[in-house]
């Protein structure tokens, strides 16, 4: 236990996390490019045309991954925040704020693509249906977090305030996820049940999964590179930063 704790703390110090993050950026950017490329190819050329929605349904291949990631990233942020409270490691706060913008982007994408899907399918860009609304709420949560941290000059305060906010906001995730169950709505129910049984053509399903993993890799790459910048900005007057090769180039 203790030994595990120790090497956890080793990585939680910015100076050791920085290079690690660097390696992850390269790895996951490559992964993301490959997966998304394959995913796009499949979603346009392999995946069959949907019998009732025609070609329009292909939006699903970005809509659903985006929607999932938007929720997933928020959960991860909450995880980091809790870690931060327990071990108060500086890195956790940095990770939280590094994830937020990417999460916000995905939340926006799920709204946007959803709207662009809704127009042909439901004949309207927007309805105040539970799922849609809760997705909108999630987007607001991200904006709120970013705005709050933006409004605070002092790093330490903004870290702590942010962490608290994220943990409070986490209660919304179940609401979003189950909103479809709780209200009977226009919006699709979960096609992938927790039980695992899928109500979907396997090819479509695979394409969706590949895209999802592509987005996932993208998110990691983006967050990691952002956290590197944050570390640089905050640790700017430490010696280890001043000794970095990329600085002295």
């Amino acid at each position, binding site marked *: 236990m203790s030994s595990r704790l120790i090497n956890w703390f080793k990585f939680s110090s910015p100076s050791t996390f920085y290079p690690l993050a660097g390696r992850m950026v390269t790895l996951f950017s490559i992964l993301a490019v490959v997966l998304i490329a394959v995913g796009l190819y499949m979603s346009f050329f392999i995946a069959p045309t949907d019998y009732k929605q025609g070609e329009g349904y*292909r939006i699903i291949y970005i809509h659903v991954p985006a929607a999932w990631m938007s929720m997933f990233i928020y959960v991860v942020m909450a995880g980091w925040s809790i870690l931060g409270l327990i071990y108060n490691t500086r890195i956790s706060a940095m990770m939280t704020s590094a994830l937020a*913008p990417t999460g916000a982007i995905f939340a*926006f994408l799920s709204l946007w693509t959803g709207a662009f899907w809704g127009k042909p399918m439901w004949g309207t860009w927007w309805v105040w249906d539970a799922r849609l609304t809760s997705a909108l709420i999630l987007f607001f949560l991200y904006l709120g977090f970013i705005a709050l941290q933006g409004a605070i000059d002092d790093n330490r305060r903004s870290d702590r305030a942010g962490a608290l906010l994220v943990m409070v906001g986490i209660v919304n995730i179940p609401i979003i996820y189950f909103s479809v169950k709780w209200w009977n709505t226009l919006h699709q129910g979960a096609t992938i049940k927790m039980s695992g049984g899928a109500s979907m053509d396997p090819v479509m399903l695979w394409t969706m999964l590949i895209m999802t993993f592509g987005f996932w890799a*993208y998110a990691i790459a983006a967050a990691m*590179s952002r956290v590197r910048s944050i570390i640089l900005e905050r640790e700017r007057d430490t010696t280890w930063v001043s000794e970095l090769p990329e600085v002295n180039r």
Partner: protein
Amino acid sequence: MSVAEFFDMGGYALYVWGSFGVCALLMIAEPLLLRSRRRNALRRVARIIRMNAEDTK
């Protein structure tokens, strides 16, 4: 299937490309922003190092 057909997306061109387009846009824009942010951070650090060098001199 011809290129035109493909881009027509069975009449759903606006919606499909509208979504995929914006998606691509954002997912290309973000890395660019990240890159510039990193550049600025590095520049700032470099400046600070130079300042300290001045002081020690």
